[in-house]
């Protein structure tokens, strides 16, 4: 078969774009296929009602790796960023607002308004984060060790990680090893006393996953987030995608939108020969890189008998139970929450008990009637929104992918009402200024973005799925099928907008080919 391209990349989200650009820069001819008419995937800014847009399904770009921005020279393609995380505001039910700045002294003095003890605890907490940060960031910035083929080189890689852990010093290392497996509630209860502050700090540890604050290993998730969140991108995901698109075009990537892949094609020896699109068009390439979820890649793009049993079973057991819904709200005023305006990133939660109860719902196949909200607010200044109006982009935790009633216009309306009721705790007359709303259930997320079971991270961030992500035989971006690679959030270091799976995958491909 003649080759049309060296490499086909499936999926035009942040990871697909990152991988495609790096591969093209590495001298490969690359075609990027996107099923939708726009690039960006869950990082794409989208108009949800005439005149009102969001900056992306996910809005948090604080974990985008500086390494990727530098190496792809994204700043020359219009990206502007700061090497600190954006300010996050935490709401309490009694009109409290805590502005948690990346600046330690500012954060401490804000917390001191509520509790002197918590202010001091936060200082210690940040000091601990700063100590372990080099180790955590090393884990995130490097390919995971190939545990399936532990040769001398791999053992050396493992040893270096051990040394990095040891370098933290005995006290910090022991503290890290003690707290990482803990539930985030236990961990923060040891340090802090104010409920809504604890809940607000803990929130990133449970977002997107099948976990509540009392689930084990959620502290590890919190530490990963705290160490990784070091970036503020002006304009958010939308700007990131715009820069990535320009970078990919400049490096010679051919991009085809409206091109949904139907099959990854293999020869008799199960070597990749290309892809077939839904339109029937065949594109020949000896390497295919999928930024889609591992489940979609193996279960939808390949025939059942093309998977060995261990692969079939591994993917079956790779947990991707979506727990997040999205509600976009357009308002004809500036939004006021607990009396404050001018906020961008806002979290609710109030207490561990309330968060755990919200999570309990999905365990018992219901959506939460009092959900935990992760909100991004945009105005005319940073998005395509009429002047004086605003958009609240709300990630709603927790909502299951499937449940007895199932998702319908009716149940989505109930979810919207639950979300609005929760918002009204902080903004009593919010409903009067609503112009338009959009509700995306986990099933909608699956249908629109190809997220298996609507999981925004392509697979849960659980310890067993982080060490050898997604499964041991695919943990180093290559798969048991020769020529097929993974580069999405289902691979190390995982979901959220980091661009790192795409980056590390491209590096691995260029090394092997």
């Amino acid at each position, binding site marked *: 078969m003649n080759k049309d391209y060296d490499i086909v990349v499936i999926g035009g989200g942040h990871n697909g774009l990152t991988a495609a650009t790096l591969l093209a820069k590495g001298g490969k001819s690359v075609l990027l296929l996107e099923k939708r008419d726009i690039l960006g995937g869950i990082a794409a800014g989208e108009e949800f009602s005439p005149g009102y847009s969001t900056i992306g399904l996910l809005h948090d770009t604080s974990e985008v790796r500086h390494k990727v921005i530098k190496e792809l020279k994204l700043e020359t393609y219009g990206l502007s960023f700061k090497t600190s995380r954006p300010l996050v505001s935490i709401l309490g039910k009694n009109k409290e607002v805590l502005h948690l700045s990346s600046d330690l002294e500012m954060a401490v003095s804000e917390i001191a308004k509520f509790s002197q003890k918590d202010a001091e605890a936060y200082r210690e907490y940040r000091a601990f984060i700063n100590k372990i940060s080099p180790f955590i960031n090393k884990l995130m910035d490097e390919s995971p060790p190939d545990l399936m083929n532990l040769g001398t080189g791999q053992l050396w890689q493992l040893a270096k990680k051990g040394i990095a852990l040891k370098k933290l010093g005995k006290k910090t290392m022991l503290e890290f090893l003690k707290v990482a497996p803990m539930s985030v509630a236990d961990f923060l209860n040891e340090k802090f006393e104010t409920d809504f502050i604890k809940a607000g700090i803990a929130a990133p540890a449970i977002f997107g996953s099948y976990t509540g604050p009392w689930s084990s290993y959620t502290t590890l998730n919190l530490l990963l987030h705290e160490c990784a969140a070091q970036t503020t991108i002006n304009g958010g995901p939308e700007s990131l995608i715009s820069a990535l698109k320009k970078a990919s075009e400049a490096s010679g990537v051919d991009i085809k939108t409206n091109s949904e892949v139907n099959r990854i094609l293999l020869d*008799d020896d*199960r070597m990749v020969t290309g892809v077939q699109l839904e339109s029937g068009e065949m594109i020949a390439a000896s390497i295919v890189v999928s930024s889609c979820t591992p489940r979609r890649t193996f279960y939808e793009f390949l025939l059942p008998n093309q998977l060995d*049993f*261990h692969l*079939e079973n591994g993917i079956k057991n790779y947990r991707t139970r979506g727990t997040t819904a999205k509600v976009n709200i357009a308002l004809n005023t500036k939004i006021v929450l607990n009396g404050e305006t001018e906020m961008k990133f806002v979290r609710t939660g109030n207490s561990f008990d309330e968060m755990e109860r919200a999570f309990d719902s999905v365990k018992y196949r219901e959506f939460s009637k009092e959900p935990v909200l992760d909100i991004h607010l945009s105005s005319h200044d940073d998005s395509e929104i009429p002047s004086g109006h605003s958009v609240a982009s709300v990630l709603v935790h927790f909502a299951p992918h499937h449940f007895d009633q199932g998702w319908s216009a009716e149940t989505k309306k109930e979810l919207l009402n639950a979300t609005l009721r929760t918002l009204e705790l902080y903004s009593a007359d919010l409903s009067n200024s609503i112009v338009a709303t959009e509700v995306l259930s986990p099933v909608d997320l699956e249908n629109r973005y190809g997220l298996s079971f609507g999981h925004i991270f392509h697979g849960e961030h659980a310890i067993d799925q982080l060490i050898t992500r997604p499964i041991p035989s695919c943990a180093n971006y290559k798969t048991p099928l020769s020529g097929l690679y993974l580069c999405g959030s289902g691979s190390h270091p995982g979901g959220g907008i980091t661009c790192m799976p795409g980056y590390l995958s491209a590096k691995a491909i260029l090394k092997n080919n």
Partner: protein
Amino acid sequence: MPIKTPFFPRTLALCNSMFWKEWAGYYAVSSYETHHEPEYFAFRNSAGLLDVSPLFKYSIKGPDAAAFLSRIMVKDISKLNVGRVSYCCWCTDQGKVIDDGTVMRRAENEFFVTSADPSYSWFSRFLRGYDVVLTDVSDQIAGLALQGPTSREIIKQICNADMDNFKFFATQEVNADGFKMHISRTGFTGDLGYELWCENEHALKLWDAIMLAGKNYDIRPAGLDALDVARIEAGLILKDVDYYNALHALIDDRMSTPYELALGWTVDLDRAPFNGQAALKAEKERGAQWAIVGLDINWSEIEALYNKCGLPPEIGSHSWRKSIPIYTEKNKLVQAGYATSGTWSPILKKNIALATVEKEYERIGSELQIEMTVEHKRHTVTATVQKPQFFNPERKTSNPKSGQS
């Protein structure tokens, strides 16, 4: 506690010896009389009736049934014609044999599979993407094996089947007295024989009909002791005796590929992907490390060893199943392999065994040494390598009219 098969009321009444064993959780007769030899000779000279209900049985139905089984089995089941039976095995990703059994294509989209081990769990792992219904019918379907030269004539008496044109490894649905059943020309004795499959509720009726019709054909109920002698003569290997289920093997060395079990002929390599394909392709190219062979153990040497002790030869009339070392030369402890089961063959008047030997020793006619303990002392006896099919009568596959299958 073992449970009863649908034929238990009959087998219990006939089992004078009270010799029972447990087979897959069921009571199974070892031998009806205190010695199994009359039952063995029924298999070879008239007809023996054996309750095979403890076999595991699966129904696979649906538009993708053939594709589903082709993915699991080493044989390309999609090429199996309706009304035909295939003997085959199934493997792990590493090409190691899990179990062997028969696959019967009863209709375009309808299959019946028998196995020695419970297989639902394994089969069901591959259901995703196939429009099939897999049902474990082990405890719904009763099975009888009627084996021996007169079995054809007996079955003619009890149903409407066209027995004279019933080919080896064919299967058909037939009407018996008031019920339907399936017959397959299969068995585990290496002789002319059939297996009959009916719903549990008709089991006793079927048994009675066969026993009545068989009266004039010297029919005899037969147990597992007789079967074991017959199956070794036929060179048919047995899971957990001559090989291990790869899923149960505690160490890799206990796993076998089809090529090592003389089942290479059942493997269809060049086709749509199936379980173990890549590993089996590599194995075929590399060549198997082990081979299953038949051994003809020299009788004069056995006699001489006993004579030295002043004893007549003592050879058990039962088959045996244990691992016995096979050496390359007399008085030299270089092991060529190991025998896994053996028996005195009443029809061949030979002492025979099935053995696993390293590939270089599989040549027909070459002489190896098998360990033998006589009067508490170990010796070796010459054993000549031959094909595992020690006994393979023409009637096994032939038909009365055409003279062959």
